[in-house]
């Protein structure tokens, strides 16, 4: 018993040693992946923590580096899906992950870059004024008032434009991957 107690006190290193490399290699990748899908730091940190803390039981056993990574990615993906489901709960639309424009790839290492490319394409497809508003807002991090000053508009104009622009972009994103409602209909019928 005394021996065991001592062991508890010296618990600082060994168990974690094997996980150490898995953690440092993967934490940044998983965080970036999640961030590219949820777009805010607070949520990305929450979800990344969830993924890793859920993983501890599993990671305490010996695993190959590859299987660790793919486990983490699939856990991250389901956390992201859950997050968006939660966001949509206030709306009346039931969500099915296959209809989310945000999930079109499963090759995760490429997914961050691809989602960036998609965002750029979405911007390109907008009318110039709307595109400019979103550029200033998202890429420069301007507030609506600052963007208004740059473009010679009122802040109210900018706020309306950015809403229109995002809705238009959301729609065009959805049509690329088929319209949400239609594809859901097909899925439901196909499943029965």
């Amino acid at each position, binding site marked *: 018993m005394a021996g065991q107690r001592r062991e508890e006190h010296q618990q600082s290193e060994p168990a974690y040693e094997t996980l150490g490399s898995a953690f440092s290699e993967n934490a940044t990748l998983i965080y970036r992946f999640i961030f590219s899908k949820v777009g805010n730091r607070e949520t990305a940190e929450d979800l990344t923590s969830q993924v890793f803390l859920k993983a501890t039981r599993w990671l305490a056993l010996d695993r190959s580096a590859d299987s660790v990574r793919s486990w983490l990615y699939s856990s991250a993906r389901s956390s992201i899906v859950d997050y968006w489901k939660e966001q949509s709960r206030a709306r009346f639309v039931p969500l099915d992950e296959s209809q989310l424009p945000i999930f079109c790839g499963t090759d995760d290492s490429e997914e961050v870059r691809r989602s960036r490319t*998609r965002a750029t394409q979405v911007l390109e497809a907008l009318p110039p004024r709307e595109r400019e508003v979103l550029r200033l807002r998202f890429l420069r991090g301007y507030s609506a008032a600052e963007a208004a000053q740059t473009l010679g508009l009122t802040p109210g104009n900018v706020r309306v434009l950015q809403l229109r622009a995002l809705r238009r972009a959301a729609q065009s994103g959805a049509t690329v991957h088929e319209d949400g409602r239609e594809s859901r209909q097909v899925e439901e019928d196909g499943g029965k």
Partner: protein
Amino acid sequence: MSEEIRSTPNQNEPTQPSVDEVAGLDRYLDALLQDRQPDADDAAKLDVATQQVAAQLRATREGAEEPSKQFLGSLERSVSQAIRSEKPKQRKAGVSRGTFLRGTLAVASGAGIGIIATEGVKDLQVASRPTQLVRSGNGRWYDIASAAELSPGTIRRFTAGGVVGYVLNVEGRLSAMSGVCTHMGCLLKPLNPAASEAGLRCLCHDSRFDAQGQVTQGLAPKPLAPITLHVENGRVYALGTRESV
């Protein structure tokens, strides 16, 4: 088609957005750009596709997707802590029933929980255990229940001075642990009594703890601290703080 006219977002023709929607989206975007989780009310006014486009655009900004060193550091600490508390459980799993009780007492001295046998233990020597919630020198014994009331399967909340805890009877062994979530300090609630396993859950972020106080789900970074129990003349005493809040 005609009945869909009222649903705005997926219409081909953009409808005139309301003042409320316009202001809500602006606040939503400000939150994203300031790395905050957007307000739920603002988010609720937007359809998910719009929120997702905003998220993707947000992630497009160069460098935005890098995790902060501070976050990585604290996550690494939580993960390593969680793994360490995972280890004793795995060790315990291999122990035969005969040696189980001795095993639990050993665990109790470490990362586990204060566990005593209901019967046959008159006065448990209370050693100074670093992981106990209240150390013997600092506390006071509170009578929290009669041993007879705490039949197997019971889980009951008690206060002992400034301590809020739960006392559990799992298969004839009594134990007690802190009733405060190690994540953000909310009070815990027992899992549904119908659940096959006794445990606690946090109402704030849904962290879960098993009957040993170990985290089984959620953001809680540490197991629940054990509370020392003592059974004498059929009464159960918990070691709490001298003063009350």
